Each structure stands twice: as structure tokens, then as C-alpha cells.
């Protein structure tokens, strides 16, 4: 487990979190390269199926990052995303993958530092949790599934 490098997907809304990620870049902050970002117009666009498929295909952690509460460019998309993530956490606990592998974060476009800190903390948490148990399933079973 020493060399475990988790694969982490971050769905970031265009208006806040994705901009904050760019801001972290202009500020030359550092965060682990494990985090790969997929840009979405709003965190409310992130479908439960996107998160579940990411885990099924072997991502060790997935998070959704949207605007601060009340700041959503589309009124309440971030609220919907939060509820969706909460629901998925329960589901993941039930099926034994563990709800702590998914998370919802909020930040504004100006919060480059929070973006970097969140990416760092989440990567560290997933590193502690170890690899996604889906990956431990035998190859043939996964292919069949």
C-alpha cells in the first residue's frame, strides 16, 4: 500500500470551483496531481450516474465542487448537488464501497487556496482509505459486471 496513488475525479462547476482551480494555478499553489478535473456548467449538472460510473471504473475518490451556499449561478444547483452526494454516500455505505469516497465541497471563484487545500485534504483522506474495493474484484467479474 506504500505506493498507492489514488485516482481522484473532481467535477467542478465552471463559475466557481473550476475558476478557483485556475486561480490556484495563477497563485502557483500546490496540490496533489492525483486530482483530475471535469468541468461542468453547474454542480447541479453532476448526475448520480457520473459519480457511480467513476467509482465502478476504478476511481478511488470522487468529489463535486460548486459555489458557496446561496451563491449558485443557477440559483440552487449546488444545493441539489449536495443532496445528491448525501444520498450517494448512504448508498455507497450500503454496498460496501464506503460513502467517504465521495464528497461535496463549496468554494467561490476567488478561493484558489481553498481549492488547493480541499484537493490536498481529500487526496490524503482517500490515500488513508486505500484503493477502491471495486478494483480488488477479480478482472473477469468486473468484465462481466
Amino acid at each position: 500500500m506504500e505506493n498507492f496513488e489514488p485516482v481522484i475525479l473532481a467535477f467542478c462547476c465552471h463559475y466557481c470551483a473550476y475558476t478557483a482551480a485556475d486561480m490556484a494555478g495563477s497563485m502557483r499553489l500546490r496540490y496533489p496531481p492525483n486530482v483530475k478535473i471535469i468541468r461542468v456548467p453547474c454542480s447541479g449538472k453532476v448526475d448520480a450516474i457520473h459519480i457511480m460510473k467513476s467509482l465502478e471504473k476504478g476511481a478511488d475518490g470522487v468529489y463535486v465542487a460548486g459555489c458557496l451556499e446561496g451563491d449558485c449561478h443557477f440559483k440552487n444547483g449546488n444545493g441539489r448537488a449536495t443532496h445528491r452526494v448525501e444520498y450517494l454516500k448512504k448508498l455507497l455505505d450500503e454496498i460496501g464501497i464506503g460513502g467517504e469516497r465521495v464528497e461535496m465541497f463549496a468554494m467561490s471563484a476567488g478561493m484558489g487556496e481553498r481549492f488547493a487545500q480541499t484537493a490536498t485534504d481529500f487526496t490524503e483522506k482517500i490515500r488513508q482509505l486505500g484503493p477502491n474495493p471495486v478494483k480488488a474484484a477479480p478482472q473477469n467479474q468486473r468484465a462481466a459486471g
Partner: protein
Amino acid sequence: MSEQKRFQPSNRVLVVGGGMGGIRAALDLAETGRDVVLVDKGFAIGGLMTQLDRTFPTNNCDLCTLSPHLSASGRKLHIQLMAMTKLCGLDGEAGHFKATLTTAPRYIDLMKCTGCGECFRKFPESVRFIPGLDHRAPTCMRYPQGTPFAYSIIKDERTDFAGLAGVCPAGAILPDDAEKVQEIEIGSIILAPGAEVFNPQILDSYRYSRHPNVVTSLEYERILSASGPTKGDLVRPSDGKRPRKIAWIQCVGSRGIQEGSVPYCSSACCMFALKEAIVTRERFYEDVETTLFYMDMRTSGKDYELYLQRAINDYGIRLVRARPHSVESVMEAGTPAGDLLIRYLAQGEDSLKTENFDMVVLATGFRVSPEAKDLAAKIGVDLNEHGFARAGSFDPVATSRPGIYVCGMFESPKDIPDTMVQASAAAAAAAKDLTPLRVVAQAREELPPEREVAGEVPRIGVFVCDCGLNIGGVVNVEEIAASAASLPQVVVAETIGHGCSRESLEHIQATIWSKRLNRVVVGACSPRTHEGLFQEAVRRAGLNKYLVEIANLRDQDTWVHRDLPSAAAAKAKDLMRMAVASVRLARPLADQTLPMNKDVLVVGGGIAGMTASLRLADLGYKVHLVERLKELGGVAKQMRRTLEGEDVRAFVDDLIKRTEGHDRIKVWKQAMVVDHSGMAGMFRTGLQVGPQMFYREIRHGITILATGALPHRPDEYYWGRHRAVRTQLELEAFLEDHSEDVQVWDKVVMIQCVGSRVPENPNCSRVCCQAAVKNALKILEINPKAQIVVLYRDMRTPGFEEDYYRQAREKGVIFAAYNPEARPVVEPEGGKVAVRFTDPILGRELTVSADCLALSTGMIADEESTEDLGMIFHLPRTPDGYFLEDHIKLRPIDLPIPGFFVAGTAHAPKTIRETIAQAQAAAGRAQTFLARDSINLGAAVARVYGELCAACLICVRSCPFGVPFINEEGYSEIDPSKCHGCGVCASECPAKAIQLRQYEDDHIMAKIDGLMEGIR
């Protein structure tokens, strides 16, 4: 030529100078449908900025931020670009000028030159100019992405013209080219000739002309620059060794001590020296020590103080408050070695120190060039005592001659964001002298028809940008391209240098044609800033603009993982795979458009709000001005005079009168913004107005936020509890109203940075140093015997404010620096207060009994209103509560949401003069929107696949804007012109009957697959 017909003689603007300011002004005018003639004396446009490696505070590569603008101005149909051209004479008056332009021979036919560089390779012996550190060549390209993209030749006796002409494959060399003179008709003029950098040769003691390792900051930029003489490798000129210890000396040639210096402050040098030191540490970290010798660190711009703190705390840059007298060569065995010795007396120390450095960088300031002074004389524009164009406190871009405006350095020394603000302000001012635009036949670029790609197998082209060293310096871009080449359906994968340069964009287009590509992936910077540019490029090559995908290799990879280059390379490959997987599924899409509402909402009725309102109303737009108080005027109502002595009250009263009397301005007093919806061109904002709080809805196309800042009132130093203690703002009024009391004052103390530059409010308030100087001079005017002590941390009087600071010193005001760890202590002493502080020169504690203690409390963001408005309008703010603009450097007025602009102190603390410039600029930027007849809503709209829809109403209930409805056929329908494109319905729909275009589920899944394929 049909092009000539479009240019209506007196309805165009002449812009003199193609630097950042000139380009911005020309682009703004062109965007509002005005014609522009942009002339520059150089061979290509870009000005001083093209020579810089990176700019503060983003530490971004300049060419990357600049080159999109350059290629934009090369191509804009409203802009006629004339390089190597000067304005030589001017007749007529505002609205009807006749200008004489002289174009020097280039000896190259611009229509034929392809910029291949063959002439340069065959005749490299004399390149014309890259300042200070270059060889010579017969042709000249100042930087790799020049516009016009063509060489130029210096003709002298030695030039073998026949040989040179024979080398050119395009036959573009014209040995008989000659100077051309022409007269053109124009309506108004913008002067943006920029400045030149001080040449420190005259300062013998710094050994600039005698020692190769003493360089100017501009030369140091060239050494750091990827397109510079050392290709970005940091080596010192004398022996090509990497320097280990570098010193910067500030104020060389500025703030007038040395012979040949000027008395004013050059404003930008503190920040660019910090930037050079930060970039140096960033690239070489522990290997290079960086020391700055300074007088006052003048980091008073927006968030610049945080940059200074980062320089000290995160990058370990050493700051020494000292003005070194000289730089000496270190001798070894009788001959000068490469090293240099600096002798200095640091503040607070009593003995002279000596220290060796490997290299010394002189932070040289700015001068108006003799050519610019000549030009001013020729066209009748007054200069001030420093040779800069004279402009008023309340009209900062108007020169002494009506119809001629000024922006950038020629007005006063300044940095790029301030130049951009003035440029937009000048463009707005210049437009009002032209005949009003009625029906503008929108000039449109002829585009090839869009190729039908639906039935084709994807043929993907992958292009990887190195972004100078930004990407290429961390990962091997060849390797990234090679890895993408192996992906299915990738037909071509290559590196392209600076991807956003005109040359690279043309290469991408040529490759699309030659390889019949139908999808493109660009590995570059953020799609947030550059997606539009690449979309336009593929469109010009006959592809729908949504067939390109950007992988963010810079902002989200190489910039944040530069300490882990191999992990960064692996991530870059991942990101490329994700982009390729997704673009494979990309479909051609059409943008939605709607008619534009041309009314304007201005929030905030202070100087900024009123100035912007009047500008736009004068141009014929209907303006709604919303003020939450009972009266217009804002904080400026409490001020009396500017530093230059102009009457603020009279100005504000006049502004109020004109605003309230204007028949196109509707002023809503005691009004609060309570709700908001829509998008640029079709906003709706709800107000509660008057004591009864009646609700009113306003429909408008754009919004300007000018809500101001608040005078800071920290509970410190007995303010509000002792009558001798006042803020500078209160003191200003007191001096005007109670001069008899001032006449008996014996001693006055002022404390700077009270409540600013402290952990609770880390930024500088910008205005307090000049306010202290202003009030000190006023006190001495009333009572010449008064003793005034100003306790400060850094005196920040940039530009010509320095003149007044010097005057105050000459008149006996004592300025004593204090250390933030040992702040002055104040005790009441009857009617006076006792102020105890440590004098830095005597090194002793002193106590002064002051009749008056003035606290420079500065400004603080109006958190309550910016928070509310930020929420209502969904606009981001800085951590200290100011509105956050779209791009700190290049778009300081535009807010990140299209159709929103900011002006005045709602953006950051600033002076009245700066506020007015920004308000005029906001009006100018607003016009670029208002000139359009329709709004583009983009293509990201939800589409319902009726056959899958079960009419379950989930979309109807979940849409934040109530757009979906169940139509006659019994399934959900979404009007694309009303859809905001958030995608909530698509993710909620249980049948997956709704897809959000551009972000379809299969695209997102493809990205996930693309990532995992490489990792498993």
C-alpha cells in the same frame, strides 16, 4: 477596394501607439462598431509589454496574455493597422481633424511576407533591436508573435540587397521602398505612445555601462524570457554562469536623488522588481538568493500588498530599506571578477555594510520619449512639468486640446491594469466626438461554409502548446504529443510553441484543411480564457466551433505540479486522453441569439456611478441609477479638495445637478436591489424604493456596480473618545471650517496605516499617504509654524503624488518610519495626546505632545452591500469584500459574468481621479455590449428527446428558472432561448430524456473512460 468604402472619414478614431493601451482602446472602439486607424512607430505592435517575461500579480507569461489581443487587432475588420508610422501634423478640430501620417519604408511587402524568417537566417549578422542584449541583423522581429507578422529591413550601404531579395521565397523584398506621406480624416485622437525606460548610463556610480553584470530590469526580463537572448536560461552576461545572489536596486533614475533622475515615482517598479525576484525564486528556488534595496515598497494596487507578503513569507525575498550609493567591481588579482560589491546603510543600523552579489538589477523607471514630446508640440497638446500630457483631476483622459485624449504612461507612470482602465476610458471619450452611430452595417468576416462532418469517422488533430516555459518548462511537450498520437482516430499530434499566437492558429487551420481533420484538441491553458480563440480558429477552417476541446495543461497541471515534473507529465497525458475521448463525440452545435435590451442599470450614486451614468446617457442610452441613501454623492461629499487642490465639493455638486437634470437618467433614491434574473442583454432586477419600499422591476441589458467603499473607522488610538484625535477625512473638513483653531496648533502627529496592512485588513488603502501629505501641506498653509510628524510604514505616493510628498519634506514635515511590531503608542494628556514612537534615525524613543492626532484610517470594503449584491447578482468577491474582476491584468473593469462591470472603490481603494477613469472606462466597456443588436446565448442548452419522455414533471419542478413545460404532444419542451444551460433538468431526469448540449452524458462518460483507460 470595398474596404475603403466602409471607413467613414470623420467617423473614425486615430490611435497613436500600439502598446497595451493603444490596442485596448482600438479594440473597444472596434467592438462598438467604430473604425480605428492604429499607428505605431515600431515594426510591430505590442509596445513595452512584449519585452517582459511575465507580469505581476499573476506571474503569467506576457506573450500568452497579449498575443490573443495582438492577433485580435490584426484581424478586426474595423481596425486599420499601420506599423512604422508616425503622426506628423494635425489640422481641424474635434469631430473633423485632418491628420498627416508618415510611414517609413519597411523594404518588405506586407501582403507577400509570410514571416518565414528565411531572410533572417541567411543574413543574421545584424538584428535590429531587442534592448541591450542583442546582436544585429537586417530584418527585425521584436518578439516571436509579431503583428503584422512580417520582417523589416534596415537599409544601409553594407546591405547586399540583391542577395537579400534573392533569398526571399515569397519575393516580398522591395529594395526601392520609400517613405509614404498621407493625409486622413478623423473625428478624434487617442494618444498612447507609452514611455521609454530610463537609461542608467548617466549614473556612473552604478557601473551600468562598465560592468556587464549590472543590468536594467528590462534586460533582466529579456534574460528570463523564453524568447530572449538566452532562451530563458538565467545566466549572467560576463561569464555565462548561473548567478547565486542577485540584488535589485529600486528607484534608479526616479524619485530624484541622482543626477539625471526625475523627481516623480515611476509607480510600477516596486511590483515588477518583486515579480522578477519571485519568478527567479520560483524557477531556481534555493539556488538563488534575492535581495531588494528599496526606499518605500509601493504596493498599493488591488491585492498588491498580499503579493508583497507572499514575496517575503513564501518566497523568502529579502527586503532591505536602504538606498545604496554605489556598485563596485570586486577585484581579484588586480582584475575585475564578475562579482559586484554593494555598500549600504540600512535603516535602523548605525554602520555601513558591504555585501557581494553576482548580479545587480537596476529597477529603472519611465520617461516620456523625446518623440512623444515632439508629437505633443506638433499637435498642440500641453505637457506638465515632467513632460507628460497634462490631464485634469476630474477628467483624467482629456488633454488640453478638445478631441485629443490620452491613456497609459504618457498621462503618468502606471502599471498595466491602470493603463487598461484609461484606455477604455479614452475610447469612450473619443467615441463621443464622432457622429452618433445609427444603423451600423456590421462588418463581418467572410467565413468558409461549415463542413458537414456528421457522417464522417472522427479524424482528430491534437496540438500541444508549450506556453513558453509555463508548460514546456515543466513537462516535455513532445512526449505529451507523442502519447496522444497513439490514441485511436488521432490523425496528427504535434507541438505548436505558443498555441495562441497568430502563427500557431494559422498552422492549426492549415492542418485542419490539409489533413481533413474534423475534431481538434488543444492542450494549453484554461478554456475559461482561451476557448473562444481556438473556437474561432477552427471555425475559420470550416469546422463548427464546438468541434474543439481544450485540455487545461497549464493552470490545472504544470502551474500547480511544477515540483513533481513526472507526475505532471503523467497527468498531462491523462488530461489529453480525456479531451480526445470527449471530442470524438462532439457534434456541431448552433448558438442561440436574442435581441439586446439597451437600457443600463447603475448601482451606486457616488462619483463613479454618476460619471458612468452621464457618459452613457449622453450617448443616448436610458440609464437607471440606484442609490440606497436619500442623496447622491457618496463618500466624496465629505471631501473638500484633491491633492492637486481642486474643489471636490463643487465638482460633486455639479455632477449631481447634471445627473438629476438629465432626461435619460432615472434616479432611484433610497432604493435597494432585492432580486435579479436573466443574462446580459435581458436582465431583470427588482428594487424596493423609498420609505414605503415599493417594489419596482427594471429591465436592462447591462449592469454597472459602483457601490463604493466605506471610510474605515477602527476603534484605535482614542478615535471618537478624545477630541484631538481625528481621521484624515475629518481633519480635511476641520482644516477648511476651523482654520482659526489650526492657527494655534503647535504640534500635529499623523499615524499611517491605522487599520490597513494589518491582519484584519491586509491590503493597503491606497489613498491615505496622499491624504496625509495633502492635509500636512494645508496645515502649513494655515499655520506655517506648526510642527508635523508623519509616522509611516512606507510612504506610498506614486506618480506625481511624489511631488507633494517632496514639497512636504522641504517645508519641514518630519516623516518617521515605524515598524509594525513597534507601533506608536498614544496616551491622552488633557486636551492633547502624547504620541510615543521610536525615531528610526536617532534610534531613540521620542514623545510628542500633539494638539491634533490624525489617523490615516483609509478605506474598507462595504462588506454588507457587496455581500448582498454578490449574492443577488452571483458575483464573486475578494476575501476582503471587493468585487473580483474577470482578469486582474487585462480586464480590470469587466466582472466574470458577462454584462457586469465595476467602477470605483467597489473594485478596490482608489483616488477620485482613478475612480473617474474607471467609471468612464466602465461606460466604454458597457458600450461594447450595448452596440450589439443581439445577444449570443451560446450553445449549452437543454434538449428533450421526446420519445424517451414520460412527462413525469421532474424537469418542470427542478428547473431553477421554470422553463420546461409539457407540450401538446404530451412531452416536456424546453425553449432554448429561455434555457440558462445549468443542466439540472438533465441530471434529474429519470429517463435520461434530456441532454445538455456541450455537456452530454456520453461526453462526460467518455472523459471518465478516457482517464481510466490509461490508468488501469
